[in-house]
């Protein structure tokens, strides 16, 4: 059911049958390491390029989700996946081996919630029995594509972020006792004129605020309705901008209600500068960390607004500003 202009309330609330989070070697030492299903021992993952390693990550996450769900590839009607590589090759190449009918999507780092929202809509409308939504990112592949190859050793400012090496996958179905997808709000592209690819958090923060505010209005709920409201990968810089923007709009968020996935993974590790980013950031934190907290009964209702910076290496070289977007999905788990 459409609420307002851009929100869906899912009448049949699709269930999360299984979810998987996979990480690289650096992630195995992160703050939420216990919420991952699997780690790879090095960045290459026995492949001969970082891009192939990213495909491997996605395959591992999808295989893990299938294993946890007790389903086979043939049981899944559709795979919705996207990533940061040019022409989303990681997703398409992983889909090549999975033999699941595939819809490739791109919404940069907000792909996690875009794919979850679309997968929910398909299941909710009886368009499928099972849909898998997945996304991945690889630190070295992303650095090479969007900034500088890591071996070049370019300096980074404190606002820079660390692309997560990892992948997240989730399988949705009509029945089951798992967490339910309640609603989703599709975001608008917001561009505040920031053109520094080392400050993506600031570029995406206004989009996150726009989507969350719209969601609350269209669902007609107060922020307190949720136990947790999370943004995708704004990092510490973007996180404080969002807090300021909410304060200016007079939207009161009680302490610890609002978090950012980019600040959760690695904490204040100086190596990651302003925090984590990448498609896998919000996917791993949501499908691993948040769902585990929900299973433990610590959280009942959450809203995840995954944020994306819709730039390309070409647009940035041509000095275009960085448009931001955020898609929000609410998940509920009442045992």
């Amino acid at each position, binding site marked *: 059911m459409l609420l307002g202009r851009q929100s869906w309330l899912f009448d049949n609330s699709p269930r999360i049958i299984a979810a998987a989070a996979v990480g690289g070697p650096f992630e195995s030492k992160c703050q939420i390491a216990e919420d991952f299903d699997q780690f790879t021992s090095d960045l290459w993952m026995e492949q001969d390029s970082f891009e192939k390693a990213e495909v491997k990550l996605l395959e591992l996450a999808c295989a893990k989700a299938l294993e946890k769900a007790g389903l086979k590839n043939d049981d899944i009607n559709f795979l919705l996946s996207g990533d940061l590589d040019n022409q989303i090759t990681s997703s398409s190449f992983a889909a090549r081996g999975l033999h699941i009918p595939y819809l490739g999507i791109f919404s940069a780092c907000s792909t996690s919630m875009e794919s979850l929202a679309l997968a929910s809509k398909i299941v909710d409308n009886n368009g499928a029995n099972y849909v898998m939504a997945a996304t991945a990112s690889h630190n070295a592949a992303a650095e090479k594509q969007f900034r*500088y190859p890591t071996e070049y050793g370019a300096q980074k*400012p404190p606002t820079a972020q660390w692309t997560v090496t990892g992948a997240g996958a989730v399988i949705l179905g009509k029945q089951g006792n798992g967490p339910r997808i309640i609603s989703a709000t599709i975001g608008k592209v917001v561009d505040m004129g920031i053109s520094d690819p080392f400050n993506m958090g600031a570029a995406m923060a206004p989009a996150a605020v726009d989507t969350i505010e719209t969601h609350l209005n269209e669902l007609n709920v107060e922020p307190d309705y949720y136990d947790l409201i999370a943004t995708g990968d704004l990092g510490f810089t973007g996180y404080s901008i969002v807090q300021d923007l909410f304060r200016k709009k007079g939207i009161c968020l009680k302490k610890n209600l609002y978090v950012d996935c980019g600040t959760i993974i690695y904490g204040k590790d100086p190596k990651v500068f302003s925090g984590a980013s990448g498609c896998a950031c919000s996917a791993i934190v949501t499908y691993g960390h948040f769902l585990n907290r929900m299973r433990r009964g610590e959280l009942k209702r959450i809203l995840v607004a995954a944020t994306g910076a819709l730039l390309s290496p070409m647009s940035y070289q041509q000095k275009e500003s960085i448009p931001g977007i955020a898609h929000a999905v609410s998940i509920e788990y009442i045992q």
Partner: protein
Amino acid sequence: MEQFIRAFLVGGAICAIGQVMMDVFRMTPAHTMTALVAAGAVLGGLGWYDKLVDFAGAGATTPILSFGNSLLKGALAEAEMHGLIGVLTGIFEITSAGISSAIIFGFLAALVFKPKG
């Protein structure tokens, strides 16, 4: 000893300018590098860079500014001998050893090592 101090101060000052370009003026590493190369060529054209090299030695020849200076000097030297076409043939005259060795050693290193990521 005095020579070392001069090299340290001048070389350090040039690097500090580069750092300010990146941190304060938000220039990318690539823009910073090319701007310094161009600045070196301009300073060379004004005849100032050689004076700086005389004063600071390696403090002035090591930073990338010196590369711009060398590009200009090569072009001017060939231009004197062969006219305008010398500008084109001479631009990499002095710097060719540096450029070629960067390519060759880069290639050799890539054969042996893998990026750590």
